[in-house]
């Protein structure tokens, strides 16, 4: 973000400091926190039956008349120009309808970048798409072939000959560090944080640690490949997409093709896993352009190889963390510096130092991160951007410090957990990470841990235990809109252009609406997944539940007003103001006076209406400015490391989460587990192979990028503090991303406990434990 935005955010923060907390939206805690009926109960997914039957339809499965299939040809150099482009053989190959290159592609504008301020933009790789002969990264699309079948398109694509004039490219991380930039801000925080003098603290410290940690490129690797089925009807564009940014995609495509947003319809009722990787990339734009040229609908379903060339991943990081502590463990200084890749055409920060600004109460801070510019496809957000690699470094360092101090790692954290934000001084909306530690430690059996490394062994297997803190900030998006339609039978339908990627969106918001409106679950339907519905912000930053929740809450307020108006005077509710009534038993009644009640059915019937509709919008998230709002977790791991081969086997994981109220224990536990399992992958196996000589990603098949398999995943115990956050809708904070955070550190810490070997570079593959 710009300096200007920093100033605005900072300014609002200062102003808000004088406002009493309950002035804020959510200042009076959401009454649903106390009055829960279905919220907090186990509910199976509403879309479960369709999914297990294979009847849920994904983007590449939408049938269309006259469909053409697309295949991409990618550049094989990182930087330079196309000098030769021979498409003759492809054009005459069987079944081919079109070969599109920069010579015949339509004029298109550069996609607008994803931004926290512009929710109608979803662009990741902010470069011209097939507009010139210039090559900007290894893997850029230089031609798209459309044919009657996928086999024909793939074959024709292989017949295209491309010649290049190579230019000097920057593809080496180490080398590019010298030219690293230091951005003014990260997300909406100021980048550089200096408080006190960490250098002095480090010198004077009773104990200190200072080390470099590294994480590699990661790919989201959803099981559903990125895909879109696209059709034009005149100037109207229909895109069946796999996206977690419906309105962002529609808005961006409108800009790219110079049409109105209302002329673009994007549908994505089911997404086969997103994790940050399902936004707008070149393929939707190329597919739409080719469909326009060919005058026929197009399916562009990326091969795994095309995915690594066109869908960016999580940047690698190199992080230095130094901690200075007094003999009692209290932090005197915290330094967190580092580098990640973010070329100028990338919209996404890998803000790995953010956690270090709020997690511990250090006397002094020195925090800043730098970005490296390479000629590569833009990096992007991936589950818990920033926090996932950041907690690996910080929480490994805390473990190292505990070891140095001869102190229990949990005790070290207890001594440093702040009672308010240690930098801004803002109060926590709710925070009790130590309760999470206590509950988790008990369930895990932390007291059985031997403090000295290499103390436990079974045959060739060394056994170790470790823990770490996970963290992810709360976010709520303004502008998220829902429509609630109440019909004559008392059935409510909630609709919004929200997303379902496995989080159980419809399931949970159905529970929410039922409780909010005093209806049984069966009387609520939730419709999501396309842009014909009211505006939805993206599914990211773990913000969707709170944003939708706020919008539904707002809509319910309007519904009360509307119902009171319709009810008129001939009703037990006559003369009541909205603040005096509550939703209950499928109707409205006066708070504290149960006899003054009328049902929705009766109100609508008397008013001769078969339905009424209201919309509600998620307001500006002012609570985020006033309070320090973070979800935290305590992660515990027990594992085995082979003293022969260095193989690591995770035997047990426990995660205890302090994330506000849990709305549906069943789907929430799955979200936490899912994140933690991605954490296992991050810790042990995941690494995209980037060839620094050529800037080419070599892990081009799913067999080359090891996501956890069933055998890598032990039973995972999930617990939560379940303390409501009084500043959020329903008392809940987001839960989608925090699961992955802290896991890699907990595993690395356990591996140290098992072997005595500290590995500071992910992933923890067998070779890293072979040599002492």
């Amino acid at each position: 973000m710009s300096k200007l935005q920093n100033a605005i955010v900072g300014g609002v923060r200062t102003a808000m400091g004088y406002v009493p907390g309950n002035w804020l939206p959510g200042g009076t805690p959401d009454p649903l926190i106390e009055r829960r009926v279905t919220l907090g109960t186990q509910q199976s997914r509403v879309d479960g039956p369709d999914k297990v039957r294979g009847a849920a339809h994904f983007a590449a499965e939408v049938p269309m008349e006259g469909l053409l299939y697309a295949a991409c040809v990618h550049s094989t150099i990182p930087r330079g120009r196309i000098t030769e482009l021979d498409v003759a053989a492809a054009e005459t190959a069987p079944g081919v309808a079109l070969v599109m290159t920069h010579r015949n592609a339509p004029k298109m504008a550069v996609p607008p970048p994803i931004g926290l301020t512009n929710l109608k933009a979803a662009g990741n790789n902010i470069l011209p798409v097939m507009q010139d002969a210039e090559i900007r990264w290894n893997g850029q699309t230089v031609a798209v072939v459309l044919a009657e079948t996928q086999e024909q398109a793939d074959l024709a694509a292989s017949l295209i000959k491309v010649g290049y004039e190579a230019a000097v490219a920057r593809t080496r991380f180490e080398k590019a560090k010298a030219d690293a930039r230091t951005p003014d801000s990260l997300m909406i925080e100021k980048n550089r944080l200096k408080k006190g003098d960490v250098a002095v603290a480090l010198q004077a410290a009773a104990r200190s640690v200072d080390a470099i940690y590294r994480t590699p490129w990661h790919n989201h690797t959803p099981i559903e490949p990125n895909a879109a089925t696209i059709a034009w009807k005149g100037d109207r564009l229909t895109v069946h997409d796999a996206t977690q940014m419906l309105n962002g995609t529609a808005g961006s495509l409108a800009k790219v093709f110079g049409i109105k947003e209302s002329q673009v319809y994007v549908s994505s009722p089911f997404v086969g896993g997103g994790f940050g990787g399902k936004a707008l990339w070149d393929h939707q734009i190329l597919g739409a352009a080719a469909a326009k040229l060919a005058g026929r609908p197009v399916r562009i379903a990326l091969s795994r190889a095309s995915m690594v060339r066109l869908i960016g991943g999580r940047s690698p990081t190199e992080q230095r963390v130094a901690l200075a502590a007094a003999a009692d463990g209290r932090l005197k200084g915290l330094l967190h510096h580092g580098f990640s890749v973010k070329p100028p055409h990338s919209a996404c920060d890998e803000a790995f130092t953010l956690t270090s600004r709020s997690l511990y109460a250090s006397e002094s801070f020195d925090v800043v991160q730098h970005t490296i510019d390479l000629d590569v496809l833009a990096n992007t957000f991936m589950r818990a951007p920033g926090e996932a690699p950041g907690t690996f470094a910080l929480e490994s360092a805390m473990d190292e410090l505990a070891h140095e101090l001869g102190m229990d790692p949990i005790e070290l954290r207890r001594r440093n957990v702040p009672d308010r934000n240690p930098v801004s001084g803002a109060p926590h909306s709710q925070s009790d990470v130590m309760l999470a530690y206590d509950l988790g430690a008990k369930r895990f059996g932390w007291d059985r841990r031997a403090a000295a490394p290499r103390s436990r062994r079974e045959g060739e297997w060394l056994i170790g235990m470790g823990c770490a803190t996970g963290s992810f900030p709360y976010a709520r998006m303004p502008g998220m809109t829902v429509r609630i339609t109440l019909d004559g039978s008392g059935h409510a339908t909630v609709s919004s252009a929200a997303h379902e990627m496995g989080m159980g969106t419809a399931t949970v918001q159905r529970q929410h609406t039922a409780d909010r409106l005093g209806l049984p679950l069966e009387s609520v339907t939730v419709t999501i997944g396309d842009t014909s519905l009211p505006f939805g912000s993206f599914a990211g930053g773990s913000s969707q539940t709170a944003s939708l929740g706020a919008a539904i809450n707002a809509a319910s307020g309007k519904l009360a007003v509307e119902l009171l108006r319709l009810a008129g005077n001939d009703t037990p509710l006559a003369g009541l103001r909205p603040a005096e009534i509550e939703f209950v038993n499928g109707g409205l009644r006066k708070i504290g006076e149960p006899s003054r009640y009328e049902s929705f059915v009766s109100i609508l019937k008397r008013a001769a209406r078969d339905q009424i509709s209201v919309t509600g919008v998620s307001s500006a998230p002012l609570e985020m400015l006033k309070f320090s709002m973070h979800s935290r977790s305590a992660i515990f791991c027990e594992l085995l490391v082979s003293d022969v081969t260095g193989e690591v086997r995770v035997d047990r994981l426990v995660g205890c989460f302090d994330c506000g109220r849990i709305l549906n224990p069943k789907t929430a536990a799955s979200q936490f587990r899912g994140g933690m399992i991605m954490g296992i992958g991050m810790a042990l196996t995941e690494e995209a192979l980037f060839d620094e000589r050529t800037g080419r990603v070599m892990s081009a098949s799913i067999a080359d990028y090891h996501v956890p398999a069933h055998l890598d995943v032990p039973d995972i115990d999930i617990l939560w503090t379940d303390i409501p956050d009084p500043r959020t809708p329903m008392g809940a904070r987001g839960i989608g991303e925090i699961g992955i955070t802290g896991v890699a550190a907990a595993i690395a810490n356990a591996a140290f406990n098992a072997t005595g070997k500290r590995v500071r570079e992910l992933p923890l593959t067998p070779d890293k434990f072979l040599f002492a």
Partner: protein
Amino acid sequence: MRSFDYRRAADRTEALSIAGEGRARYLGGGTNLVDLMRQNIEAPAALVDVSRLPDSIEETPTGGLIIGAAVSNSVVAVHPAVRTQYPMLSRALLAGASAQIRNMATIGGNILQRTRCAYFYDVAGSRCNKREPGAGCDAIDGHNRYHAIFGASERCIATHPSDMCVALAALDATVHLLGPGGEREVRLLDFHRLPGEHPEIETVLRPGELITAIELDPSAAAANSRYRKVRDRSSYAFALVSVAAGLEVVGGRIEDVRIALGGVAAKPWRAVRAEGLLRGQAPTRARFLEAADAELAAAKSFHGNAFKVELAKRTVAAVLGELTGADA
């Protein structure tokens, strides 16, 4: 994928005669060949489907086994005689790929599967001598974690990815072939070739030749055998290093020992030197390590796979230890 003709052979003779007609390839389960064709690495004019040839697993007059080439990897893996008499083979098969792939894959196809070198697979963007003789090898200075430490050449450092073949090498299996010129037999150890000047020639198979079966001889070492695979992911991943070993100890001395390594060369690597050092010796941990050390002394590693030398050493010693009950 290029267009091709598809024909299914009812018996071996028919298979041979169809294959003789042109640029044809035999098709087993297709788990490797179909993928390579889709990547445009292979482009046969015709496929002769031999996966339904009436093959089976039979006992030989000498008490060994003859396993038809069309039998699936899973059928072999769970066959009672394999489990009892050749456990290393059973386990090597079970360590490979996934259950679905093992159900599809044939014995013949498994032997002839090609390397998983990422540069070999990157048809459009990387140089590879195996794909395109003379083009160069991008793996030598590139990502070569999965590459060879034995028998590599300046042309190619790829490994053969099969688990099954490692056990077959240790068992000294015989490959039965049928070609236009008739039947012949080749030791599995002689079947795959080291890259040398011609990494594109991977085996001694002649044009049109069909693998019809593999034959195993019984032995005490085969019956007392193990397979251990070390990999980056606990399952459904190729080997970094694997070890197949069998041991017969008589009167406190090693009478017979078989050791083969996987993931280290363009062919399953029989640890002849280590075996020689162990034969006649007492089975102790120190001896095992010493023998493994001696074998690995000849290894030549690259920047991405230097760890394999130590890993292979330790794994050999550990597997032998497990076979004798001596602690690893």
